[in-house]
């Protein structure tokens, strides 16, 4: 069938298009030339060594990781109870509550970043780790909320009711019945949340300084002025981190979200 063949060709071309820029960066980061070259001329890990020796890059990596980690923990602590409230109770204003908690997904991050800067300025909550943390928590919370909520199905309710009918206290029911059923959702949501925080530029850029910088913002500031193989090495490191994260994700929970019917 011609249509089938055509789809195959388009799909292969698109898969190549998806990996090409990443391959180019990884390749260019290995070049021995002092400028960016692809295909690389010669192969060296010098640019990665240079990156590791630069305290600026190392501290940005640390900041990004700490920020993404603490924002994810905060988001989980806040949104798991919220998901429970939205899935298991009826109360006035429920639709409004859920759209407020989900709206950071569609709201331009640059607007939210600007808003937090202006608002934080009234009480000195700017250009600090805490200022970054509250913003990141807001934008990543919907990921955890959505995936935890999706697993709180009506069918699971029966188990929760059985647990409380048998005399379990709410906390016991939560830890022994509810939590195990939504654990996978919390893990998936947390991973997406962590990554979204780790790669964010638009929100962080308002509250970072030369000393307190996240890795994407630092890269963004560099790339606008100079491009050299160190930048490619730093970018390459983030790509490798992403690949590792995805392979782990695939091996533990499985990423085969597009499987056919069965």
């Amino acid at each position, binding site marked *: 069938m011609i249509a089938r063949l055509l789809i195959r060709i388009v799909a292969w071309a698109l898969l190549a298009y998806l990996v090409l820029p990443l391959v180019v960066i990884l390749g260019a980061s290995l070049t021995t030339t002092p400028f960016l070259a692809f295909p690389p001329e010669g192969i060296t890990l010098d640019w990665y060594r240079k990156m590791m020796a630069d305290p600026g890059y190392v501290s940005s990596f640390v900041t990004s990781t700490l920020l993404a980690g603490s924002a994810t923990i905060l988001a989980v602590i806040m949104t798991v109870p919220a998901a429970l409230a939205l899935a298991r109770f009826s109360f006035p204003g429920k639709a409004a509550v859920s759209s407020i908690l989900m709206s950071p997904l569609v709201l331009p991050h640059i607007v939210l970043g600007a808003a937090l800067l202006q608002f934080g300025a009234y009480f000195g909550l700017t250009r600090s780790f805490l200022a970054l943390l*509250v913003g990141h928590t807001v934008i990543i919370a919907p990921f955890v909320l959505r995936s935890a909520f999706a697993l709180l199905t009506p069918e699971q309710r029966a188990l929760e009711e059985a647990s409380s009918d048998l005399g379990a206290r709410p906390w016991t029911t939560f830890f022994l019945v509810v939590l195990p059923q939504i654990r996978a959702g919390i893990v998936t949501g947390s991973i997406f949340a962590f990554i979204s925080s780790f*790669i964010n530029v638009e929100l962080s850029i308002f509250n970072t300084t030369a000393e307190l910088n996240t890795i994407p913002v630092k890269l*963004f500031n560099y*790339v606008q002025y100079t491009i050299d193989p160190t930048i490619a090495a730093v970018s390459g490191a983030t790509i490798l981190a992403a690949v590792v994260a995805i392979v782990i994700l695939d091996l533990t929970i499985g990423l085969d979200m597009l499987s056919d019917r069965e």
Partner: protein
Amino acid sequence: MMSGLRAPFLLLIVPLVFFTAFFLAPLATVVVASLSASGNESGLTLDHYVRVLADRYHWDVILVTFRIGLYTTLACLLLGYPLAWYLVRIVKWRTWRRICVIMLVVPLFTSNIVRSFGWMVLLGRNGLVNDGLMGLGLVDRPVRFLGTELGILIGMVYVLLPFVVLAVGNALARVDSSLEQASSDLGARPAATFMHVTLPLTLPGIVSGAIMVFTLAVSAYVTPALLSGGRITVLSMLIFQQYSSVFDFHYGGALSVVLLVFTLIMVALAARIGTVKGSAT
């Protein structure tokens, strides 16, 4: 559903206070700033909006922003649908599909900045794309990509394509094959079955993917900033300037509200088209 307000109140109090303090209140500050007089005067004014909307230049920027958003969305749908189809319906070997999904998700897990940087290298005057085009004899001189809308479009489609593929792919995987079977048993050709059965059934996926891509495209900052080479301005770049170097929060606020309102209008329209089309067939 259990009723009684005590439990949901206790469960929601912390997230709601947090979102009020660090989400609703900051956004309200922007709206208030956009409506209040600048300088030492007090009172409400629409001056900043007049300044934004009475200026031809701003309309040009708004037009460019939404044109890029629209083209990005269309390109993502036209390219993403076949790719989703391929992954869900054509690939039979599970391992290969897993590898494909990983290829699809790795870009999503990498920063926009890294991905746009890759395109800066590829689309440059001596980049791989121009080398390829000249090598194939398609062009005599290097094509200018950086600093053109085409360049921005290539980068944006790249960044946003996975969202459409995942949304459409999920919808495709959930289509009940007996419906398609019935259609072809009743004598419909594959093309007719696709148009009248499969496409309408995947419409919710298409609409949700399109809305996601459109909102992300019109509010994108990093990709256009890097690939425009300072030659093309989109709304988010104007907003960033106001807050980072000009420090005019009133004017920046008005620009932000304009971006928000235009985006919400387009999203509402798309959702409407989705429901109308979906119920008609």
